[in-house]
């Protein structure tokens, strides 16, 4: 059974690699797609990519760990990235972080036990005039205050991931 799963994984990766082309220069894009697909890049995934591209696994690992949007450890289904940049900071980022930490019962950098949420800091995402801001997967939320954050998180917890205005 286990071996069977491994084969499926290898085939999936192979087809994604082939989609972009078997070239070294496509490594980053391949990893980005795999990261979206599997939510993180396990050792097994990285090794498969390396053998498809015929480069050393350490090189693939090096790229995967360099970029902060590529995960080499499992993350929650929804990754909450709160902007830590100075403007959001001046506008009360700490309160947002405290609220999320209380709401989810985790600290920055941790994942909830049910595997739903991961809380992280991120660098400026260019919403400085409307800070504080955060990113949940690919959706941006701005002009946040503690009540709004609770509302947004509850919405995700219920399974809806559409934008809250």
């Amino acid at each position: 059974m286990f071996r069977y799963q491994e084969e499926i994984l290898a085939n999936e990766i192979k087809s994604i690699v082939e989609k972009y082309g078997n070239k070294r220069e496509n490594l980053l894009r391949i990893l980005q797609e795999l990261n979206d697909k599997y939510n993180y890049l396990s050792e097994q995934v990285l090794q498969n990519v390396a053998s498809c591209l015929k480069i050393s696994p350490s090189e693939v690992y090096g790229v995967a760990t360099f970029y902060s949007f590529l995960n080499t450890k499992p993350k929650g289904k929804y990754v909450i990235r709160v902007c830590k940049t100075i403007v959001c900071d001046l506008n009360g980022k700490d309160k947002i972080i405290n609220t999320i930490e209380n709401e989810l019962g985790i600290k920055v950098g941790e994942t909830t036990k049910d595997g739903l949420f991961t809380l992280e800091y991120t660098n400026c995402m260019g919403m400085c005039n409307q800070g504080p801001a955060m990113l949940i997967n690919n959706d941006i939320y701005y002009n946040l205050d503690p009540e709004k954050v609770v509302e947004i998180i509850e919405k995700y917890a219920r399974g809806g991931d559409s934008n809250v205005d």
Partner: protein
Amino acid sequence: MEEKYILLSKNFGYQQSKLNEIVEYTKKKLAEKNLTGKVAVKLRLDNYYINEQILLSILPDKLHYTKVDFKLIDEIIDDYLINGKIVERNRFQCDELLNRFFENFGDYNYFNKQLRLTLRNCGIIDPESIDDYILADGFKALAKMLTKMKPLDVIEEMRKSGLRGRGGGGYPTYIKWTNGHRAKSETGQKYIICNADEGDPGAFMDRSTIEGDPFSIIEGMAIAGYAVGADKGYVYIRAEYPLAIKRLENAIKLAKENNFLGKNILGTNFNFEIDLRLGAGAFVCGEETALIASIEGRRGTPRPRPPYPSIKGLFGCPTVINNVETLANVPVIILDGGDFFARIGTEQSKGTKVFALAGKVNNTGLIEIPMGTTIREIIYNIGGGIANNRKFKAVQTGGPSGGCIPEDFLDTPIDYDSLIHAGSMMGSGGMIVMDDNTCMVDVSKFFLDFTQNESCGKCTPCREGTKRMLEILQRITEGKGELDDIEKLERLGETIKLSSLCGLGQSAPNPILTALRYFREEFEEHIKDKKCRAHICKKLIEYFILEDKCIGCGACKRKCPVNCISGEPKKLHTIDQSKCIKCGACFETCKFNAIIQR
């Protein structure tokens, strides 16, 4: 109430008596035709803009005329006001760009001091419609170039314009293009890269430009491609900008469908294609050699220059890398000419610059000003002054590579060289305004924390030096600073500046060095008196309960996470300073303002 206005003004220095005659004549003529009461005649301020004698505008119809004489007044009143036929004689078309913008936004204070070239279409056209862009003169520059200009003509036009790279460095764009044009490629392949990896904290110009007007980037890249001799372009854009990515993808698709990209563009033998590459959350990838490494699928680490990318860049081929804002300016220069562009700005810095105005001002947002505007004008006129009527303390430009400019330098004109002189730099255009609630040590710590985190780790001065500097700053904010710390910071900073490999390291100490230059006494206060005047550095704050205000409600006592507040109900409470963790919970809880920071 009149339905229409006729506004009359004269050029500065032109005879006043002549204007009065015209005004009297117009009034008389209107009265004759029974239009008094329907059309008002007003004077407006002298006009500095056009050298053509008397000017006349009809509002709200937005018709403008020059060289006004009695005959023209007759024509306007008879033909237009009575019969509704627009008089074309002497009708004046000012620069279309300016005109279009002011027609839409000229009434707003926020926009009055601005001049929009880069953002000419933002907020005016629908960014997802190619028809809108074409209606706003889109791709006209591309068509003009392909039919009338040779690559060297394009470069010559860029030289005349004096456009300098808007990514921060300020390197003249035409030199990059000339080098790219001259460079020999073994395979014949050359590339254009648009750097949209805008990572500076507090900067969002590129995001807004792409979200508001993605087609202008495409047009700019195609023009660059033609000038340099490249047929392939990449846009390297941050993954943090999902909407910008979506709009750009859509714009590239539409441009391809309409033959503004692809093979044989507009029926000529010029081919150009654009591909998107997404970043993955690494600030250093905004550095051009790191960006190239990232597109090649490697770790985004910089390499020493020379060879410069324009000689040997992506996949070893000549590559011209331009910032989003630079490229958005290119169609304007080609369409309206380099001379038009060079009229705007200062001697050494031409054109306009987009800034992301953020922080403690009343109006935040994206602004575009002609070079040479002073910082004071930006903050107090466009920004509407400091929020909550607080006092101005400093303005941070240039992000983690720039510095904080204090009040004394508020009258500095914005251009590349003056800002460097003031100890900061243009950078990509982040402008963060800070009020007196900001602690400069904390701000320096923030920027250093940022660069330290984002250092790629390749060269030692940057990797280790920023770490050590951060440790020292951390100590100072915790009240454990020592007297020689300031000197250590300065020495380390200078070393890092001199010996780092790329721009990130070379500029990393700037925020703290300028803070030391202008706000030294704040650092000394932190070290000697263990005080933070802005009450930001938590470890240096002490919370006290005021005897005359405390009513003994016990709210603070219940909130305190470490139980360091004691006191009987309805009696004065006290805080045990040795146990206090300075979380500030009591301060926020107290409804009677009985708890103070000091």
